[in-house]
């Protein structure tokens, strides 16, 4: 107790206490300064440009004067970070009112992709062709018919690399039912790819795929023919994937599971 009293009375103690008081005073002003900076920094944060990715599938049929939007999905930071999306239907403009589908006729079916985001991107398209049970009500699920040939749904590819175009066909991932295409060029924001299809035709051969039943009555022999493709519906499906251009090789491997090489903005399949 005696030592404590001596310590408290010593000049050193007084100096130390004074020093501490000054230090505390200084630190308290730093806190105020930081608070002021925080206030202003919020104003600056609102000016930061966010990266929004977006992609749209475009279609031009016989009825359309120019390509129209079918489906889109854009990220929008201006609406609280939500997706602005719309899923439409393909082939709606293929037939006129009351017009019946004519096997063998080539219908205009031009499909392309637009970058509707504000960052550059790489694009992949997967096309599926198949037959399902026909004449189903809206909302009623139609089952896929697997013993009918999807090769008779002829969606003609254009601008592929073997035609000197930009679309690469991924042969390893493609089958009679599925075709996978990669756009080999970087697609800048706001730009549209070259079309990857131009026409759709149902092969005439469907009229020769039949099952026959022969009956005889009163000296007449009648052959009843049932068409295998009668009453079935053909279906075209297009899935479009887009990924950021930054660190594209790793991004594509991570997002799509495909090894690619990107040199000077040109994508090639490994």
């Amino acid at each position, binding site marked *: 107790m005696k030592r404590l009293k001596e310590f408290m009375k010593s000049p050193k103690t007084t100096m130390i206490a004074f020093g501490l008081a000054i230090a505390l005073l200084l630190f308290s002003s730093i806190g105020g300064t930081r608070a002021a900076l925080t206030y202003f920094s919020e104003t600056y944060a609102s000016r930061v440009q966010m*990266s929004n*990715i977006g*992609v749209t*599938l475009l279609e031009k049929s016989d009825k359309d004067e120019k390509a129209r939007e*079918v*489906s*889109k*999905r*854009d*990220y929008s930071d201006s609406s609280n970070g939500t*997706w602005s*999306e719309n*899923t439409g*239907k*393909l*082939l709606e403009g293929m037939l006129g009112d009351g017009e019946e*589908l*004519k*096997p*063998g*006729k*080539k219908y205009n079916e031009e499909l392309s992709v637009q970058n509707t985001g504000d*960052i550059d*991107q790489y694009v992949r398209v997967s096309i*599926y062709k198949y037959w399902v049970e*026909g*004449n189903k009500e809206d909302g009623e699920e139609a089952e896929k018919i697997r013993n009918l040939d999807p090769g008779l749904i002829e969606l003609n590819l254009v601008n592929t690399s073997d035609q000197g175009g930009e679309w690469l066909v991924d042969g390893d991932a493609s089958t009679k039912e599925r075709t996978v295409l990669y756009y080999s060029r970087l697609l800048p924001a706001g730009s549209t790819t070259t079309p990857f299809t131009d026409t759709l*035709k*149902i092969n*005439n*051969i*469907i*009229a*020769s795929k*039949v099952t026959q039943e022969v009956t005889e009555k*009163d*000296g*007449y*022999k*009648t*052959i009843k023919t*049932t*068409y295998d*493709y*009668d*009453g*079935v519906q*053909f*279906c*075209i*499906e*297009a*899935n*479009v*994937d*887009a*990924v*950021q251009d930054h660190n594209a090789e790793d*991004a594509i491997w991570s*997002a799509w599971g495909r090894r690619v090489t990107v040199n000077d903005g040109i994508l090639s399949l490994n």
Partner: protein
Amino acid sequence: MKKKHIFLAVLAVSLIMTVSVGSAWAYFTTYVEAQGGYTLSLGDETTIEENFSSWMKSLVITSEADSKPVYVRARAFSGDLYPVTYSDGEVFNQENPAVEDDQERGVWTPKADGYYYYSKILYGGGKTNELQVKIENVPQDVTEKEFNVVVVYETTPVQYKEDGTPYGVDEINWNAAELEVDRVEGGGR
């Protein structure tokens, strides 16, 4: 006990490290999809009307209302002793109910294979003009009841070109393997 502590420590460090993995794998991606299609309607049903009198058989082929368009050809068999001659009969011009007044008359035209080919497409609900088959050289002692003429007619679905126009009747190769031909035989007397 000591091992357990080391294990828990390693686990804690691992968990802290994996927190950053999620952000390292995040890339900007998006996707869209769309689909569409139409139901096919194929098939046709045709019938033949035959009238036989005065050694002449008159044939008219009719297509059911919901049938798809077809090409038609026909021929008659009566044996070598009694040759037949063909001619166009009554004109109906009702091949296509959608067209009120057909501009040109449908006729039956022979080809080297012995068949007579109808020159127009037969649409659902329509009927051909009449084809008359006259039996020649019939002896006096043969009656119509004893006589037998067999008529065969065939139809095949209309084929379309890539521009959507149908192939003409003359452009169809009836013997092509990919062409489905419905054959109907019969026609007693």
